[in-house]
C-alpha cells in the first residue's frame, strides 16, 4: 500500500539521485587521477562506489520504502562476502 500512496502524491526524488550519481561519477574519475598515495585513492574510490551503490539500492530499487524484514534479508549475504574476501586476502 505504501508504494501506492507514495506514487500518487510524490515520486521518490529520481532525478535528484540521477544528478548525484552523475556528479559522483565525474568526481570519481577526477579523483582517480589525483596524485595521492594508492591506499587513499583506493579507499576514497571505494567509499564513493559504495555510496553510489547504496543510493541505487535505496532509491531506485525502493529499499527505503520496503519493510524492515526485507532489509534484513538483503543484508544477509554481505557478511559472507566480507568473510570470504578478507580471509583469503590474508593468504597473500
Amino acid at each position: 500500500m505504501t508504494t501506492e500512496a507514495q506514487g500518487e502524491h510524490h515520486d521518490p526524488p529520481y532525478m535528484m539521485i540521477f544528478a548525484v550519481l552523475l556528479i559522483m561519477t565525474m568526481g570519481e574519475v577526477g579523483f582517480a587521477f589525483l596524485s595521492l598515495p594508492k591506499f587513499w585513492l583506493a579507499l576514497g574510490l571505494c567509499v564513493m562506489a559504495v555510496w553510489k551503490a547504496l543510493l541505487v539500492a535505496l532509491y531506485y530499487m525502493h529499499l527505503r520504502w520496503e519493510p524492515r524484514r526485507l532489509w534484513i534479508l538483503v543484508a544477509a549475504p554481505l557478511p559472507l562476502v566480507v568473510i570470504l574476501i578478507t580471509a583469503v586476502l590474508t593468504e597473500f
Partner: protein
Amino acid sequence: MATHAATAEGHATGAGHDEHHKLSFIRTYIFSTDHKMIAKQFLLASLLFLLIGGILAGLVRWQLGFPGQPIPFIGSMFSDTTAPGGIILPEFYNSLVTMHATFMIFFAIMPLLVGVWGNFLIPLQIGAPDMAFPRLNTASFWISVPAGILMLASFFVEGGAAGAGWTSYAPLSANPEYSGVHMGQVLWLVSLIILGFSSLTGAVNYITTIINMRAPGMTWFRMPLPTWSLFVTSWLLLLAIPILTGGLIMLLFDQTIGTGFFNPATDGEPLLWQHIFWYFGHPEVYILILPAMGLVSEVISNRARKPIFGYHAMVLAIISIAFLGWVVWGHHMFQSGMNPLLGTSFMISTIIIAVPSAIKVFNWLGTLWKGDIHFDVPMLHALAFVAMFIIGGLSGIFMASAPVDIPIHDTYFIVAHIHYVLFGGSLFGIFAGITFWFPKMFGRMMSPKLGKIHFWVTIFAYNAVFFPMHNLGLRNHMRRIYDPNSYEYLQPLQGLNTFISIAAFILIAGQMIFAFSFFYSMFFGEKAEQNPWKSNTLEWTAAGHPPGHGNFPGGTPHVYRGPYEYSSPESNEDFLPQGVPPEPVRRGAVPREPGFLPTGD
C-alpha cells in the same frame, strides 16, 4: 488508483486453481508444473544416478580389492583406453573415483534431498496450493537433465571423463598437459555450471514459498522440521552455489581459452581455487545433511509417538550449523600451505560445530526417551542415521584438530568420514524419507518385509565396508591411489582391502532389493490409508489422498498447533493433527470426513 484498472486476467497469487480441465500427457508427466510430479521426476532421475554412482563405486572397489585383475562378467565391455581386457588403467581409475563422487554428491544425494523433498514436502507441509513459481519449478528439473547427460557423455569423449577428483584441484584440472584429460574436464565444468542453475532456481522457489505462502496459523515455530531444514538448506544453496559457479567459470576459461587464473605459470593462484571450492564445498556438505536431519526428526518423533524433544533448540541448531558452516571451509586445507594462523581460526570454528550437532543428537535421544517406539522401516533407517551420523561426526573431530589432521589428511580415514556422514547420514535419511512418504507419493505402502531385509543387509554390509577404512587410514593408506600395493608398507593391508571390496559388492547387491521393492510397491503395493503413520502434519491430514491438483481439496487449511503433538493429553488418540481446531478435539483426533477440516476464510 482503482480508476486506472484495466484488463483483469484474474491471476491470483498462486491460489486460483479452479479450472479442472484435463491436462495432456505431456503436461501431466513430462513438463508438469505440479510440484508433486516434479518431486517424482527428481526422485526417479536421481535414483538412477545413485545407481550409476554405486556401480562406479563397485569398479573402484574391484580395483582396490583385486588390483590388476580383469573385471569379471563385464570386463570385456570396456574400451582399450579405459580397461583393456577388463584391467582398469590408472587414468580410468582416477575418472572412476572422480565421477563416483560427482554423481553421488551432485546428481544423487543433492537432488534426492533438496529436489525431491523440497518439492514434495514444502507446499504440502505449510499448506500451500503449490510452489510460488510453478513454471520455474519445472525449469529447475529440466535444466538438470542436460547437465546429467553431459556428465554421462564425458565418459565417451577422447581422454575420458574428468579425473582430478571431485574437488578438481588446479592446476591438475586446469591444464590438459598435466592430466591428459581435456574434453572430459570441460564437460564436467559445463555440466556443473548448468546444474548450478537448477539448484538456484529451486532455492529461490523454496525460499519464496516458505516465507510467503504458509497457511494461516502456520507460524515459523509451527513449521515441521523437514520444512525448516529445507528452508535453511535453500539459503545455503542460494549463497554457496554461485560462488562455485564463478570458480567453475574461471577454471573453464583456464582450460579452454588459456586465461590462467589458477595456473602458476602465469602467476595464477592454485590456492584461490581451493578457497573458492571449499567456500562452497563446506556449506555443500551441510546441504547434504541438514534436510536428512529434518526428515529423520519427523520420522523419529512420529514413530516414537512423542513430541520432538526441544523443538526450538532443534531449529536453532539447524540455523547455527548453517551459520558456522560458512566460516570453517579452511579445514579442508590445513596441509595445503595455507597461512597457519588462518588455519588456527578455521580449526576452532570447525570444532565448535560439534556443539549444535550435539544438541541435535541428544535431542533425538531425548525424543526416544519414554517414547512408544515402533520399529517400522522408516524408523529403522532414521535410527541408523542417528547411530551412523555420530560415528561420522566424531571422526570429523579428529580431522578438525589440525595437528592430528597432518597424518590422516588424504588417507582412508577421510574416506571413512565421508561415507559415514554421506551414506550413514544422508543416504539413510533418504531411505527413511522415501519409505515414510512413499504412501503419500504413490498411494501404496512399500513392502515392510523387503524393507526390513534391505535395511539389515545394508546396515551390516555398510559398516563392514566403511568402518575398517578408519583403520586403513590410520595405517597411512592414502586415498585416490590406484594400486595400494605399489607401496610396500601397504601390502599387508591387501587382505583388508579385499574384505572391504567383497562387503561392498554385497552392499551394492543389497540395494537391488530396494530398487525392486520400490518399483514393485509402486504398482502392486498394498493400498495405503489416508494417514498410515497417524501423523500430525498437513500433508497427511488435510491434503487429498494422494494429493491432487491444488493440494488441499477443502481449501487452504488452518493451523492450530505445532507439528509434533504426539500423545497429547488433549486427544484421545496418540496424535493431534495440526489442522484440527482445539474445541472438537475431545471427540477424537481423526478427521473422518474430508470436509471436516476448516477451510481458509
